[in-house]
């Protein structure tokens, strides 16, 4: 693989992961602001819960970022890209990126237990896809 191809490959992997992390974190932030959906559904029914979710701007931005991540993944997977590398690499980078960003942006307590499980899942994804 030439250096250009390698740079192109890893750039597309990072772009997919960044878009996916942005989408996940914005969606999680939106749901945190909306509150417990089970309780909202119990009071306002399913239409009320759907309205509450769609009224949250973070949700719209999150869906936009997820859409961008999906199409950039399609672009990254275009032949002759190595699917067996791109799929687990984007998934693992997304897991790790989510842990970093959730700690700083969502103020989640990412303790050693969570880091260790993220690590196990990332290695597991590589082994399954390999």
């Amino acid at each position, binding site marked *: 693989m030439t250096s250009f191809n390698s740079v192109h490959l890893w750039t597309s992997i990072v772009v997919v992961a960044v878009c996916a992390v942005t989408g996940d974190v914005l969606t999680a932030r939106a749901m945190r602001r*909306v509150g417990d959906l089970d309780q909202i559904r119990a009071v306002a029914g399913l239409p009320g819960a759907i309205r509450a979710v769609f009224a949250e701007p973070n949700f719209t931005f999150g869906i936009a970022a997820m859409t961008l991540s999906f199409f950039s993944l399609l672009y990254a997977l275009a032949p002759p890209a190595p699917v067996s590398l791109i799929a687990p690499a984007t998934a693992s980078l997304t897991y790790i990126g989510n842990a970093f960003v959730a700690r700083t942006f969502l103020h989640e307590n990412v303790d050693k237990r969570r880091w260790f*499980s993220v690590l196990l899942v990332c290695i597991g994804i590589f082994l399954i896809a390999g």
Partner: protein
Amino acid sequence: MKHRLTPQQYGILLTVMLTAAVGDTLLSHGMAQVGAVNLHHLGLLFVALKNLWVVAGILCLIGFFATYLTALSWADLTFVLPATSFSYVVVAVISHFWLHEHISVMRWAGILLIVGGVGFVSQGPALTEHPAPPSEPRSVDDKDLNDEPVRRVAAPVERHTPRTVREVRS
């Protein structure tokens, strides 16, 4: 206090895993019947929507997204993602028994690691408890309308009395 999940919430996490795995597998099976889609044959995407497997897969993935959002409304992102990564294992098992794909030793090792990761994260708290912002101590003079018992604070009254109350007194 550690935030623990109710059996119903564990059921939602299980639904997230199963709908993601089954949805992906159904889509894969359906798209294998439809054929390869590329930029020159985008019309095949509309043909795919007539395939029952694809439609069933899309319905499953809609169910996945709804339950995923529900889980995010009462649990941390860094809890939900590893906890639901078990769907990778379900996909591998379905592929083995339904699509008759071979699972190598490396894949079984990967499955074991993911199961370990899920087991680890599920033993911890599901939600980060943020301490409530400290409320302003009230003085003896600041009785509210509910006639609740008022605590005497050690600090000088003027220092802790809200500005609006001071203005009314003066």
